[in-house]
């Protein structure tokens, strides 16, 4: 790699489960700009069985557009850059293609220690294969059942939690004994690692019970007291296990490590880093959210008071996990987002076809709606795990609703490549249900993880690329919160454009309005909520002005109410979805 001050060109790569993306940043007139991108199938499987082939294929696309060559005749990366636009000064890769860590969680109470363990596991790419919650009871048959559960799951890790520090003893040790016994039934090379994150006073006894039967890692108790949650120690250890046991076993990964001047980063970590950076640019009293919907993972990054909360569903994405979500959430929860009827069997069939041809795309609108319905439930499922772990402080005026968010970053193939921007905006509004005034930002080039990663090599490159339009404004959303009858006027607002023209609009409860405000344009909005509705300007009934940015969709007023409600009858749900899609130009 060139010296940091000399870095004039950077190739950033993200190896996803299905698609490998490559992005070229160059210094132009002293500032870093996004120049071009390419994408190709990830090549972990036969006939390539080497992830670097996908990087070369994606790089070839950039070469065709720019004339810059990245690889020599032997396929090696040319770095630093040579004369004649050959190679790049720096390279950095993020990875989400590897198998998630397979985890079995054990704890005493489902809603306490087990829920904390679930959030700890969600800090990295993991798939929870089973949950052993003893609720303080454990008989012989339960022990046998639990051993069978572990044997069936064949996890990489069994994470045992339970007991506050100095609290419960016997049921926690019984869980540990269960894990120890199950290890004796598994071939030594396949034995799961045991991660102990329970009652800290029992650590010595846990070490004695496990002995040589399994690899034991001991971390801070995830629930040291009933009201306290400490996830970072467990999350760090699980992340290390993911990198060591999963990411490092991808075919071709050693070559990428050789090319990479900085440690290889999981995509979600880099995405989280970018979301954290964006929080520093915005209103510090609010949060910033990021949703990255991948083929096999759904990542939700939230930042409040500068603190990052990462939640990853490593088993659910828009390609892999459809069948699982159909079962987990119920058919009706998926089909309520469709504008036309579809049976559970047909939905399952479409999910299977997608999974057997992961790179394929929907050619028929019917299948597109289903993918977007799946996207909604994947995000909602991830949000349900994430929210109890957030500490939004003053950004949370209503405990049952999403905290106030300044910006929501939206990434991932199904969202970035949605045929119409209104569809993406609607997916985000339907799932995250933001309140107040929020800017939706779309990562249409798939740059977000790469920019989060480049910050480790060249922070200025990340900053300048963002400033130079690395992310695209999708919309500014105004969401009034309150109660009214459908059709009641709840907000009077005016929009004053940069050319001085103004128009006024009255918003009725139940409406979803889109007002014109193009990308690059700004406007001043003046909001006068009625009936004590809250538009995030200081409390119920508070009026005020805000300067807002335009976007691909424009200015959206989402007066559908919070939380969002659906009609009970499926035909009415379909009518409603048709209307909402029509309203946002989807």
């Amino acid at each position, binding site marked *: 790699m060139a010296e940091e001050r000399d870095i004039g060109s950077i190739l950033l790569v993200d190896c996803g*489960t299905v698609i490998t993306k490559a992005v070229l940043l160059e210094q132009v007139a002293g500032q870093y700009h996004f120049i071009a991108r390419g994408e*190709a*199938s990830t*090549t*972990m*499987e*036969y*006939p*390539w069985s080497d992830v670097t*082939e996908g990087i070369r*294929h994606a790089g*070839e696309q950039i070469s065709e557009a720019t004339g810059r060559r990245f690889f020599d005749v032997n396929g090696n990366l040319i770095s630093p850059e040579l004369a004649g636009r050959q190679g790049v000064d720096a390279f950095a890769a993020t990875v989400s293609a590897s*198998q998630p860590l397979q985890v079995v969680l054990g704890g005493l109470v489902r809603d306490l220690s087990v829920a904390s363990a679930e959030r700890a596991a969600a800090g990295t790419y993991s798939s929870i294969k089973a949950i052993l919650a003893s609720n303080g009871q454990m*008989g*012989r048959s339960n*022990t*046998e059942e639990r*051993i069978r559960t572990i044997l069936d799951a064949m996890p990489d890790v069994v994470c045992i939690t339970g007991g506050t520090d100095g609290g419960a003893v016997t049921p926690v*040790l*019984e869980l540990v*004994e269960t894990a*120890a*016994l199950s290890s*004796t*039934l598994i*071939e030594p090379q396949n034995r799961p690692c045991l991660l102990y994150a329970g009652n800290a006073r029992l650590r010595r006894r846990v070490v004695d*019970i496990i002995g040589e*039967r399994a690899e034991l890692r001991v971390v801070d108790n995830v629930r040291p007291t009933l009201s306290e949650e400490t996830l970072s120690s467990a999350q760090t250890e699980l992340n290390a296990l993911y990198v060591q046991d999963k990411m490092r076993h991808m075919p071709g990964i050693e070559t990428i490590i050789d090319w990479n001047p900085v440690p290889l980063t999981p995509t979600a970590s880099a995405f989280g880093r970018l979301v954290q950076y964006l929080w520093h640019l915005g209103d510090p009293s609010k949060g910033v959210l990021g949703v990255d919907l991948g083929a*096999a993972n759904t990542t939700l990054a939230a930042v409040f008071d500068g603190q990052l909360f990462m939640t990853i569903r490593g088993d659910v994405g828009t390609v*892999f996990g459809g069948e699982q979500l159909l079962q987990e959430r119920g058919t009706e929860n998926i089909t309520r987002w469709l504008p036309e009827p579809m*049976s559970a*069997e*047909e939905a*399952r*069939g*479409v999910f*299977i*076809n997608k*999974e*057997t*041809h*992961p*790179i*394929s*795309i*929907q*050619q*028929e*609108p019917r*299948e*597109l709606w289903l993918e977007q319905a799946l996207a909604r439930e994947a995000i909602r499922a991830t949000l349900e795990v994430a929210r109890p772990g957030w500490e939004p402080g003053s950004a949370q005026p209503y405990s049952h609703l999403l905290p106030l968010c300044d910006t929501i970053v939206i990434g991932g193939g199904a969202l970035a*490549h*949605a*045929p*119409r921007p209104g569809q993406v905006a609607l997916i985000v509004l339907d799932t995250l249900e933001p309140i107040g005034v929020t800017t939706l930002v779309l990562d249409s080039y798939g740059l977000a993880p790469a920019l989060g990663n480049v910050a480790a090599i060249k922070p200025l490159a990340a900053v300048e690329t963002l400033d130079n339009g690395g992310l695209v404004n999708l919309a500014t959303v105004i969401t009034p919160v309150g109660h009214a009858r459908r059709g009641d006027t709840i907000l009077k607002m005016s929009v004053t454009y940069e050319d001085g023209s103004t128009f006024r609009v009255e918003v009725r409860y139940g409406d979803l309005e889109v007002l014109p405000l193009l990308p690059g344009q700004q406007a001043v909005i003046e909001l006068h909520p009625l009936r004590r509705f809250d538009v995030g300007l200081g409390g119920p009934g508070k009026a005020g002005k805000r300067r807002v940015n335009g976007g691909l969709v424009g200015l959206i007023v989402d007066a559908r109410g919070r939380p969002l409600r659906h009609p009970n009858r499926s035909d009415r749900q379909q009518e409603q979805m048709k209307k909402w899609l029509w309203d946002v130009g989807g």
Partner: protein
Amino acid sequence: MLYTSEIQITPLTSIRRERTLPAPGRVLVDVGDRVEATQVIARTDLPGDFHVLSVARLLGVRASRVKRYLQVKVGDKVGRGQVIAKRRGLFTRSVKSPTDGVLAAISGQYVLINTRPTTFELLAYIQGTVTSVREQKSVVIEAIGAVIQAAWGAGGENVGVLKCMVKGPSEPLETEGIDPSCHGMILVGGAGMDEGVLERAEEFEARGIVIGGLQPELLPQVEQTPFPVVVTEGIGSAPMSTPAFHLLSTHDGRDASISAQIQTRWGIVRPEVIIQLPAETLPPAPTQPGTPLAIGTQVRAARAPYMGAVGKVVALPPHALRIETGARVRGAEVDLGEGTPTFIPLANLEILR
């Protein structure tokens, strides 16, 4: 250059299959041996069931004192009813083994008894020659024949004789056609099957079913079927692709191996049908896998509305075009034999090898 996924529907090729034991065991064949598809080529013992006894509770003692009351040690064989722990006193208490087995572990209050292991036998699956053996683990068998890779499947592996039940790739497999002559056969249909087929095929002990598309409402039934069902095109009403149907119908009456095993990532496994052909027929040199899409390449459409349609690429437009969903995507003009070429997104094309 444009790369896309590939699928093998090959009339004549060299076939290499690695057969692996689920746990270390004994390989029964040597390099150079000719094996039959149903031949046992390796064997291993798999752990049997187990029982967990809470000795501490049953004896009424603390977990830390369990070891002093045990009458057997780890690794000892135990018989059903044998006393494995005893606490003497005014009221003597004892713990008996509920089964024949081996005392496998002691952990705190618990004792774990493994019942006798079960024997697992690994079959060759294809007829061919053993070309490599990994001691205690796996065997590589090579053969010559036709291969049809499929989109989806349910069930395990089997071998049988191909029996083409339909006249064309668009014809569904029907219950009426299934009679005692289907015993031991792998039944080949076209576009889907009717509801009674699986039951009747099971009744007459068919060895497997191969069809083009499978109606989604039959999925639960197919997943319970004791023989493999291989779906060449996908879930839906698609006819079987012409090359796949042509191969299967041409070899009507030949021995075939069928596998419905599927893994869609981290070591992809595709369902398949392998038709063994006489060894003296030499396959042509294989085309290089992983090569880019080009004009003239034979492709198969993987998703609706053209799922299963096969044709040749006649043009590769340099720019993205809009499709019915509104998305703008790169694609290929494919001659599907319908007069004018059809634009299909690259992502939905599979190169036929």
